[in-house]
């Protein structure tokens, strides 16, 4: 058995990483398609404020963070849906407001400590059984939510107004999506850290959107990329003693690079083929040529 599987903490870390890799892109795809990627970073900083308050007052930081992120998600969603503030400015207000509060609270409570650092950069190796159970719970909830409301969420992402005229309950679903995103970010940041949790929602999804021809396959691809990145990142972290969160996100970015490369190669290959058979095909016109591929 490889030495990585001989330690309890490492098994917990792997389980946590795999759950985050599965969970984050499943929600992330709807966040990205609605061009609302920045919400991940924003809610991560709201959660950080919760952690700071929790540490300062000696209450459970994870739970205070969960409450703060859920509340933050509701506030952001209300601001967005009522058109009070253009999306990115609403997010900026909430992001910097939370970060500033966190910094002030930390200062009053007596400066940075090790615990806070583990939230900032993630500390997958100290994932507790409770953290893991919370992750299992949110993963089950998100998988169920997305499974049941997949078509509704897809319609909202496609066009909010069209979805409403189709009878989709956009208000309730957008709120649920925001709150679940807040919870996902809070519980995932234990593993990858405040500063990188947004990457896990966005980067695997970008790979999926590059490669897939349907939302389903895009989501499945994104989940595979998320899980593979988490396992690879943890393995690298274990053997070369690097930051697990950093290694995970770098792996995901590497896979994104490979996806772009693959598309470039494929396009180049297709052009090469079209060039060699170009004379015969051009007699019927280029559009006829194209249709042949699809019949």
């Amino acid at each position, binding site marked *: 058995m490889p030495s990585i599987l001989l330690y309890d903490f490492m098994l917990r870390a792997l389980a946590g990483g795999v759950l985050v890799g599965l969970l984050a892109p499943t929600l992330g795809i709807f966040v990205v*398609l609605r061009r609302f990627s920045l919400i991940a970073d924003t809610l991560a900083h709201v959660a950080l404020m919760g952690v700071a308050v929790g540490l300062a007052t000696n209450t459970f930081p994870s739970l205070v963070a969960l409450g703060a992120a859920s509340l933050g998600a509701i506030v952001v969603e209300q601001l967005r849906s009522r058109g009070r503030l253009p999306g990115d400015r609403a997010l900026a207000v909430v992001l910097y407001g939370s970060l500033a509060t966190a910094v002030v609270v930390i200062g009053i409570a007596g400066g940075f400590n090790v615990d806070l650092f583990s939230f900032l950069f993630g500390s997958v190796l100290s994932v507790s059984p409770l953290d893991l159970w919370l992750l299992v719970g949110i993963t089950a909830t998100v998988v169920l939510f*997305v*499974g*049941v*409301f*997949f*078509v*509704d969420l*897809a*319609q909202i*992402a*496609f*066009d909010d*107004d*069209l979805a*409403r*005229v*189709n*009878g*989709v309950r956009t208000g309730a679903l957008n709120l649920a999506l925001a709150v679940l995103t807040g919870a996902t970010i809070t519980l995932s940041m234990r593993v990858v850290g405040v500063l990188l949790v947004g990457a896990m929602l966005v980067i695997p999804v970008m790979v*999926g*959107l590059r490669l*897939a*021809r*349907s*939302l*389903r*396959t*895009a989501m499945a691809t994104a989940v595979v990329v998320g899980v593979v990145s988490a396992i690879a990142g943890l393995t690298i972290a274990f053997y070369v003693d690097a930051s697990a969160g950093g290694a995970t996100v770098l792996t995901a970015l590497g896979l994104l690079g490979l996806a772009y490369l693959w598309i470039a190669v494929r396009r180049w290959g297709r052009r090469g083929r079209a060039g060699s058979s170009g004379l015969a095909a051009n007699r019927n016109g280029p559009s006829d040529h194209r*249709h042949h591929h*699809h*019949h």
Partner: protein
Amino acid sequence: MTSALPPPPVIEWDHVTFAYGEAVAVEDVSLTIHAGELAAILGPNGSGKSTLIRLALGLLRPSAGAVRLFGRDSADFADWDRVGYMPQVVAGTWRDFPITVAETVAHGAYRGIAPLAIFGRSDRPEVVEALEAVGMVRYMGRLLSELSVGQQQRVLLARALVRQPELIVLDEPAAGIDVSGEEQLYALLRDFNRERNITIVLVSHDIGAMMREASTLACLNRTLVRHGPSHELTSAEIAMLYGVPVDVLIHDALHEHR
């Protein structure tokens, strides 16, 4: 043909005012569209046309007045099977959205929460039929993002058509397509209106096309300037609508071509 009862109202705007903050977009508009009409809402840019139909679809709430859809307050309206909507298509909107033509249309057939629809197929008979109606069936398996704006519009029209609605509302359907695409689109709408008896409401700023295509014209410039049969529109009314004299001769010439 004689009929004792006039056709029922489909959309009623009853002294409707709507403001975005301080800016009044629509002021005291009263207008009724009846079943079977091919009605155009005409007006210059920023005249409140899109606002008016967003109010009708319950996407906005009026600041004053009432809006009714099939006789119900549009805020409480729930019978969405009767309504199809085609929003403005802006080039590049779905550039990164992985969805096929068939899937897009299948979305239109949505009838309430459908668990396990994630595993559903999208090449169902009603989807094929709707795509046939707009002449896009051979593009079924293509990605929506690979199509031109005009083709995307036809796919969205199929999406509106797939649930066999009684009313289809279109926001600037001819924006961004060329003349032949425009002619095809209007021919489709005429066909839906006459053959399938679907009430059509469309928003446009194209006077000439609307004088040709629509049965009734509502001219809007924040308030309702005029409402009536399209062939009775006079150049004086157009001048009032747009605030500048408009050469109607062009449109009369188009009339004679038909």
